[in-house]
C-alpha cells in the first residue's frame, strides 16, 4: 500500500497545491477570504502581495493546512493528506520572526525539526551541518541566537526549514523586519537555494521589489473581502542575481505591478 506519494514521480507532473474554491469565514462571522482557486506547480515561486487585510496570511495558512477551509477543498500533490504524509515533513514554514530557541545553540536549533520527527542523533547532526553550510553559517553553529544579527538569525530559521528537505516552502514575510541591504542579500540567496533544489515556494511580502525579484508568479490580492485580484507572471529566467535589480526590465515590471496594486487597493474599499 502506498503510504506516501513517491516524490520523484510526483515532481514533474502533479501540482503541489490546489485550492478548489476554498474560502474562510472566521468564527466571528467575518469573511477572511472569498473562494479562491489557485494551483501551484512544482518549482514555482509564487508571491502573495496586497493591501493589509487582504487575507495573504490566511491564504498561506490554508495552503499549509494550519487552518481548515470553511468551504471548498485543499489538495496536496493530488493526494489526500494521509497519502502525502505529515505536513511537517514535506512542507516547511518560515515566519517573520525567526522563532529560535534562545537556550539552544544554532546547530541544535536547526536540528530541532528532525529530532521532533525522531531522526537519529547522528544523522540529524549531519543533516543540520549540511543545512547550515547551505546558508553559509557553518562558523556560527556553536553560537547562541542572541549572539547573531537579525539577518543571521533569519538564515538559521531558513536552515531549520531546509533541514527537513521539504518540497514546499511557505514563508510569511520572512525578511520584513530586516534592513534593506540584508533583505536584498537574503533574497538573492533564497532564489539560488530554491532554484538549486527545485523547491516550490509560496511567499507573502509587502514589497513590490522583493516580489518581482523573487517570483515566477505574483498573486495580487484585494481586501473586503480578501480575494485574489489578479495573477501576474514574471517571465524572467532563473537563476537571477543582483544585476536583475538594475535592469530596465526590472523597473518596468515593478511599475506594472505597482499599477496593479493600486487597482487592488481601489477595489479594497469597504462596501
Amino acid at each position, binding site marked *: 500500500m502506498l503510504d506516501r506519494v513517491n516524490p520523484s514521480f510526483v515532481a514533474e507532473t502533479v501540482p503541489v497545491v490546489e485550492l478548489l474554491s476554498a474560502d474562510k469565514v472566521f468564527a466571528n462571522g467575518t469573511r477572511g477570504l472569498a473562494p479562491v482557486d489557485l494551483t501551484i506547480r512544482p518549482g514555482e515561486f509564487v508571491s502573495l502581495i496586497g493591501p493589509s487585510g487582504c487575507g495573504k496570511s490566511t491564504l498561506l495558512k490554508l495552503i*499549509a493546512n*494550519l487552518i481548515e477551509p470553511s468551504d471548498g477543498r485543499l489538495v496536496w500533490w493530488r493526494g489526500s493528506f494521509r497519502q502525502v504524509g*505529515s*505536513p*511537517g515533513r514535506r512542507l516547511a*514554514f518560515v*515566519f517573520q*520572526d525567526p*522563532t529560535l*530557541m*534562545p*537556550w*539552544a545553540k544554532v546547530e541544535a536549533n536547526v536540528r*530541532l*525539526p528532525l*529530532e*521532533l*520527527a525522531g531522526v537519529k542523533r547522528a544523522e540529524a547532526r549531519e543533516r543540520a551541518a549540511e543545512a547550515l553550510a547551505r546558508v553559509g553559517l557553518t562558523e556560527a553553529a556553536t553560537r*547562541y*541566537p*542572541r549572539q547573531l544579527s537579525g539577518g543571521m538569525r533569519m538564515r538559521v530559521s531558513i536552515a531549520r526549514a531546509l533541514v527537513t528537505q521539504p518540497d514546499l516552502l511557505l514563508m510569511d514575510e520572512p525578511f520584513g523586519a530586516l534592513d534593506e541591504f540584508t533583505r536584498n542579500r537574503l533574497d538573492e540567496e533564497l532564489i539560488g537555494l530554491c532554484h538549486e533544489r527545485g523547491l516550490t515556494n509560496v511567499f507573502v511580502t509587502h514589497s513590490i521589489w522583493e516580489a518581482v525579484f523573487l517570483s515566477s508568479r505574483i498573486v495580487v490580492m484585494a481586501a473586503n473581502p480578501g480575494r485574489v485580484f489578479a495573477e501576474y507572471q514574471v517571465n524572467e529566467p532563473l537563476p537571477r542575481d543582483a544585476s536583475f535589480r538594475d535592469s530596465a526590465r526590472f523597473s518596468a515590471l515593478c511599475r506594472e505591478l505597482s499599477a496593479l496594486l493600486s487597482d487592488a487597493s481601489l477595489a479594497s474599499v469597504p462596501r
Partner: protein
Amino acid sequence: MTPLVERPWFARVAAPVCVALLLLAVWQNLCTVYEVPKYLFPKPTDVLESLIENHVTLLWALLSTLKVTAYAFGLSVLLGTTVAFLFVQSKLLELSLFPYAVLFQVTPVAAIAPLIVILVKDTTTALTLCATVIALFPIISNTTIGLRSVDPGLAAYFEMNKAGRWQMLWRLRIPSALPFFMAGLRISSGLALVGAVVAEFIAGTGGNSAGLAYQIMQASFQLDIPQMFAALLLIALTGVALFGAMIQLQQFLLGHWHESALKAER
C-alpha cells in the same frame, strides 16, 4: 593595564569587603572610646573571641540549622515543582488548588509552628515542615508562571511539527521556565533559612537538635551578648553563602543565554 578599581573582581569582592572593614573599625572604636560594656553591646573583637571560644557548640548548632534548611529547601523544590507541573496540566486543577497555596503563603509561620510542633513528634521533621511552609510558595508561583511563559511563536512551531506532550515539556516548557524557576529558587533558599531559624525559636528545642536560634536564646538568658552576636553572624553568613550558591547555579544554567544571567558585554 586596567587600573585596579576598574577590574571586575575588585568591584565585586574587594569593594564590599572594604566597606565591611570600615564599618567594623568604626564600631570597634566607638565601643572603645565610649567604654560600652560588652554585655550591652560587644566590640567586634569580643564577638570574634566568643566565636573562637564557643566554636564547637556554635558549629554543631550551625550544622543542625543547615540540616533543617537543606531539608526544607529540598522539600520545597520537590513539592513546588510538582505542584507547578500539575497546575500547568490542568487549569481547573490550578483554579481549585491555588487559593490554598496562597493560604499557606499568607499564614505566618509563627502562628502555625506551635501546632506543627505539637502534631509532629520528631523535632527535625517538625522544624523542616515549618520552614517548608514559608519556602514553598515562591517555587510554586514562579515555576507555574515560567511553565506558562512559552514564546507563542515557538509553541506554534512545535505544534506544526507535531511535537508530542513530552517533547513540548522537555524541549520547550522546561527550558522556558528555567529563568523563572531560578528566581523562585533564590527567594526560596533564603526563606528556608529564615523558616528554620524562626521554627527553632518557636519550638525552642535543646538536646541534639539545638540550632543557632537555640544558641541565641540561651545566650540571651545568660546575657552572653557576644555569643548572641556570634550566632547571628553565622546565620547571616549562611544566608549570604546560600544566595551565592544560587547565583552560581543560575550562572551555570542560564549564563550562556538568558538576559538575567548575562555578564555585561562590550
